[in-house]
């Protein structure tokens, strides 16, 4: 399994993501700088990490979504390569229109940083197959712009198509219909505000995030 982590100026969860990928695959991911125009040959899993790419200039994820490497990521996503965007990575995926909707300032205006319960909505996707539908898992969030927005027709469509991967079990940031994670129509791109890479070791306080990587990287126990 050849994995890659895309690194933007201002990414700050790239190393956590790399630890998670290496822990599960036994092989360190390629760290791919945003100015690159190609992914390493044979890349079969791409992660967009959390952070504050380009200082959140213009809008969170807006500049990163127009960076050279994103064209290669979009091409790979179009070929069916799994792409996981966490936190700022989710914002980048919506700005790049690889996922529907947008992430706005939290309704309460505060930065929210705590472990939150999530409800697994879709346990059939390649990222969520290790969970049971309706199961509650605990994953940390740490964001200021996590308030998911899409128009009513889009929300109805993604719900109808089973593309809501996770919902917040408690009120966190004002997200429409409590959406915490969304899949693309093909099911190979997942964006989520909570950080699964921060819940992969018992020392983190829980390992619910590890199961996502195990499912996505094909090493289900």
């Amino acid at each position, binding site marked *: 399994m050849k994995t890659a982590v895309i690194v933007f100026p201002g990414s700050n969860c790239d190393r956590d993501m790399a630890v998670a990928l290496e822990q599960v695959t036994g092989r360190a991911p390629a760290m791919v700088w945003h100015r690159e125009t190609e992914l390493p040959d044979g890349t079969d899993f791409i992660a967009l990490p959390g952070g504050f790419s380009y200082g959140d200039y213009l*809008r969170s994820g807006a500049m990163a979504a*127009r960076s050279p490497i994103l064209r290669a990521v979009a091409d790979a996503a179009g070929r069916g390569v799994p792409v996981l965007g966490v936190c700022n990575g989710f914002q980048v995926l919506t700005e790049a229109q690889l996922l529907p909707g*947008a992430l706005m300032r939290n309704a309460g205006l505060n930065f929210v940083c705590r472990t939150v319960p999530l409800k697994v909505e879709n346990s059939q996707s390649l990222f969520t197959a290790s969970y049971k539908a309706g199961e509650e898992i605990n994953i940390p969030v740490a964001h200021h712009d996590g308030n998911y*927005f899409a128009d009513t027709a889009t929300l109805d469509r993604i719900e109808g198509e089973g593309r809501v991967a996770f919902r917040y079990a408690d009120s966190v940031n004002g997200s429409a219909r409590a959406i915490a994670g969304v899949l693309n129509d093909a099911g190979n791109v997942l964006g989520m505000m909570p950080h699964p890479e921060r819940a992969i070791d018992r020392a983190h306080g829980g390992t619910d995030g590890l199961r996502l990587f195990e499912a996505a990287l094909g090493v289900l126990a």
Partner: protein
Amino acid sequence: MKVNVYVTLKPGVLDPQGKAIHHALEGLGFGGVADVRAGRFIELDVADGTSDADLDAMCAKLLANTVIENYRIERP
């Protein structure tokens, strides 16, 4: 040529920052403010011959996120 671009949230999109500004205005004793919506103003200095289509594309592709925002271009 200076071109002004105004980016505003679409009607119906919740604006937490606008709400906070509204609240702060009330805190300062300014009554009678019914609502506040915050947006972004961008000043572009572009070549004189820049077409409307190019300006429109700049807004649609980058300056505004049309999922949540409208934009208005003001030429001299």
